[in-house]
């Protein structure tokens, strides 16, 4: 396909409740996202054909754009001609709960974790991890495999030339369990084997005809190295071949698209990775939903994704409160609230997930819960995104008293350059400053970090597009997808309130400001979107802004809908124990950032 000739791109994302379509057109030589449409997803009865929803959404765009995209037979018109059709049509899918997988490996923290990484990276939800060092007894594991109905199973284990016994043992757990796939009683469970090369013939022998076995390269050829690519690609292939083919209407949809349909989270990861690669930055993305929260990160080129299955803002809101404790949630609230009443409200939100906060109080509380949900999800992400475990260390005498372990997190808030937010509570917050505050409180970015949000959640579409037309995807991502909220400048370190934290100087784009931030202080400097200013920072002793304790930093601040936030509250961010004191403090911060109507003068 000649990329130069592509002018009109249509993309859809078939979610579990709605199908979203966007139209990307070349305007003045640049790709822009122009129109969007939405329609209920039609996977379930009575329609049971996903394409109906797709056509509805596309028709809506067509009407808005004044462009006929669907022909009489209900098919998408291609290629584009004047005022009609599109050049490329692509789609992602998370309908029916997305791609659900079970993974297995020998050691939970090693090959099983690599397998989990591969599955998550491919956009799957990992239902369970089976490992040889599982505390569950073998028959319990077998029981579990029988209860689960995953879309596919990824089996790994052993380095090349390593253990065969354990790998076969895992296979011997899975084979007699006779796992049944989620869709279609008649088709065979796809099992991808990405483990020890030497065990392949044995694996083939252990799994009989009842499963559809695919063999790819070992995802951990040696313990020191991960090779997730082949396994990830195979997951995508199997997703298309098996899972999609068995979901209603997908067989049709597959023939429509110009690029393989991807699981939605996989596509989001794709675009984030592409952008991080292109700009050489470290980026973190988060998508907080009703039931789950996805965190994506790219640090030094390594991509990681986690799904926190029970951290969300509606279905799982009660779980967030249970995990974080109500006490912790209420620390983020500047209004007095009653505990018992709140607990019931939380449960009511859980059983009636579609309601929206009407009063200010309800909004404040919901955003407090969001902070905790994000914080916990990020914590899980940090624990998962680690260096490889099981690697031999080379020590020198200098390490006697500082024996660092392997398997430490690679997530480094100081190195994070870009933090992208998406998901209802973040993108639809009534004020942008609220989004900024939630991100800052939950993620605690350090140093200089750009904050942005995904305007209409088009990252999935762009993720697939990046596979076909990377330039177009990047352009749209920069221009239309991301809404820059501003820049967060935060110093790492803790001191006493009122002590100096850092000095700053900002100049450029009509801004020339200098001053000092004291510990505990928060300052907002409005600075519009598209603007950039030189930023000079001089942290006090004991504070770090990226160059080390007390060392000067030169950087760039980016404007946004909120502006530049100078954060002297310290990292880690410690909230007072006393609830009353905490509430006053929150009140101050709310005022500085102008978060809620009650603080407006």
């Amino acid at each position, binding site marked *: 396909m000649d990329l130069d000739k592509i002018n009109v791109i249509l993309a859809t994302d078939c979610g579990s409740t709605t199908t979203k379509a966007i139209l990307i057109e070349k305007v003045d030589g640049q790709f822009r996202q122009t129109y969007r449409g939405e329609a209920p997803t039609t996977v379930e009865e009575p329609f049971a054909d996903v394409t109906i929803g797709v056509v509805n959404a596309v028709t809506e765009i067509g009407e808005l754009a004044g462009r006929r995209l669907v022909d009489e037979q209900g098919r998408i018109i291609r290629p584009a001609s004047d005022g009609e059709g599109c050049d490329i049509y692509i789609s992602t899918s998370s309908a029916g709960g997305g791609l659900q997988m079970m993974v297995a490996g020998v050691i939970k923290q090693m090959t099983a974790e690599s397998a989990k990484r591969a599955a998550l990276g491919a956009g799957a939800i990992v239902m369970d991890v089976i490992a040889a060092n599982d505390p569950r007894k073998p028959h319990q594991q077998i029981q579990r495999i029988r209860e689960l109905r995953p879309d596919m199973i990824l089996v790994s284990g052993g380095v090349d030339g390593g253990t065969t016994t354990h790998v076969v043992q895992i296979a011997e757990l899975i084979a007699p369990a006779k796992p049944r796939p989620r869709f279609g009683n008649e088709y065979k469970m796809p099992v991808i084997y990405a483990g020890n090369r030497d065990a392949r013939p044995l694996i083939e022998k252990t799994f009989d005809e009842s499963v559809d076995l695919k063999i790819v390269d070992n995802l951990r050829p040696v313990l020191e190295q991960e090779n997730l690519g082949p396994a990830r690609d195979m997951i995508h292939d199997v997703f298309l071949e098996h899972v999609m083919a068995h979901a209603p209407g997908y067989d049709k949809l597959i023939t429509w698209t110009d690029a393989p349909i991807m699981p939605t989270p996989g596509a989001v990861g794709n675009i984030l990775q592409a952008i991080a690669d292109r700009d050489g930055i470290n980026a973190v993305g988060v998508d907080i939903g009703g039931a789950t929260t996805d965190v994506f990160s790219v640090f030094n080129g390594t991509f990681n994704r986690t799904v926190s299955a029970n951290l969300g803002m509606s*279905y799982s809101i009660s779980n967030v409160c249970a995990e974080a404790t109500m006490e912790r949630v209420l620390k983020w609230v500047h209004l007095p609230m009653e505990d018992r009443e709140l607990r019931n409200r939380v449960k009511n939100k859980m059983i009636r997930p579609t309601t929206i906060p*009407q009063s200010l109080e309800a909004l404040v509380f919901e955003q407090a819960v969001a902070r905790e949900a994000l914080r916990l999800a990020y914590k899980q992400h940090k624990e998962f995104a680690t260096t490889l475990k099981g690697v031999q260390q080379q020590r020198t005498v200098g390490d006697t008293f500082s024996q660092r372990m392997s398997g430490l997190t690679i997530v480094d808030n100081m190195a994070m350059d870009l933090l992208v937010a998406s998901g209802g509570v973040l993108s639809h917050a009534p004020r942008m400053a609220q989004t900024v505050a939630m991100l800052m409180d939950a993620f605690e970015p350090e140093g200089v970090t750009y904050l942005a949000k995904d305007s209409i959640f088009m990252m999935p579409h762009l993720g697939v597009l990046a596979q076909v037309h990377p330039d177009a995807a990047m352009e749209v991502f920069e221009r239309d997808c991301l809404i820059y909220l501003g820049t967060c400048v935060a110093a790492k370190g803790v001191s006493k309130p009122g002590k100096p934290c850092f000095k700053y100087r900002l100049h450029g784009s009509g801004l020339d400001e200098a001053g000092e931030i004291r510990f505990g202080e928060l300052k907002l400097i409005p600075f519009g979107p598209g603007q950039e200013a030189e930023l000079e920072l001089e942290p006090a002793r004991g504070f770090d802004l990226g160059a080390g304790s007390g060392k000067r930093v030169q950087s760039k601040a980016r404007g946004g809908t909120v502006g530049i936030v100078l954060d002297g509250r310290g990292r880690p961010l410690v909230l007072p124990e006393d609830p009353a004191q905490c509430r006053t403090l929150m009140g101050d911060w709310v005022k500085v950032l102008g978060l809620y109507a009650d603080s407006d003068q």
Partner: protein
Amino acid sequence: MAHAYTPGLKVTEGAILRRRRVLPIAGEVLVEAGARVGARDVVAETFMPGDVTPVNLANLLALPPADVPACMLKQEGDWVEAGEILAQTKGFWGFFKSEATAKVSGRLEAVSSVTGQVMLRGNPLPVRVLAFIPGNIIEVIPGEGCVVETEAVFVQGIFGIGGEAFGPICMACSSPDQTLEAEAITPEMRGAVVVGGGRMTLAAIRAAKEVGVSALISGGIDDLDLQGFLGYDLGVAITGSERMGLTLVITEGFGDIAMAKRTFALLGKYAGREASVTGATQIRAGVMRPEIVIAMDPDVERSVPETARQDGLLEIDTTVRMIRDPYFGQIGKVHALPAEPTVLASGSKARVVEVVLETGETVTVPRANIELIEE
């Protein structure tokens, strides 16, 4: 965007209910189309392959796995009783001889020469599906199950705990807003489906469990009471598999909230009648709500014909209930339906509805925060 509000829960006196009762895996359907079944009749049955117990003979005999098959005294397919000798090493001039016995009974399914494991599969486990509601089998799905149909009084709850339960309806409260206290639970309620009024207290739940009440239905429950009963804080509203010995159904929500008058009256009307109750709730895609079904006896009575009103239409004068604070649980009538989105107190913009409350006060609430109820 016509459905931008929550459709109400069903509370109806005369519904034709159809329930698919299917096995989780293929099996045998025990009823024929047209048959009449009782609520507790088994309609389909199957046997899950038995539990598999791996036995690591290589470890037990301290042998390399490859030598295991040669030492087997039992062959694949043989039935092994617990305590029987599975395998024996040859030893060395009569020394170092050892043997391994089976810890559980089962059929020897496989012997692996790689791991040295053998698999013993126990007896198949029966899986049975009950009819749940008494009625007629209108369709048999071969190998899977059947569809039962009945005319019934049907009440959907908002949230429940516990699985399927049966028993006669027994009213414990005299008004829909009366709190269900422990005193209201009497020993005669053993095996009954007990209907309370407003909130159910933890003491009442405990008393009910003590007495052996089959199911407890009420308007609301306090979160802390639920936590006290379950022993943990419920994180996600996916329930039904708890084994608490008691099924709980709340019809309205959490907190001090009265049962809808209509629901209370309806249940009261059928006091003493057999009811089928399930607490299984799943608030996710493919929503499941708890149900209370009181089937009609087709030979004796006709159900009250369902009102012809089409559900799901939000019109002026429709009775609605607020399902979100600050007016949570209050009932009113739609007064106006402004077309343009309005800015709420929280600062966000949403489409709203104006409602006249029972107190006469007119309030504006987002459309997402009301549900239709049938009066």
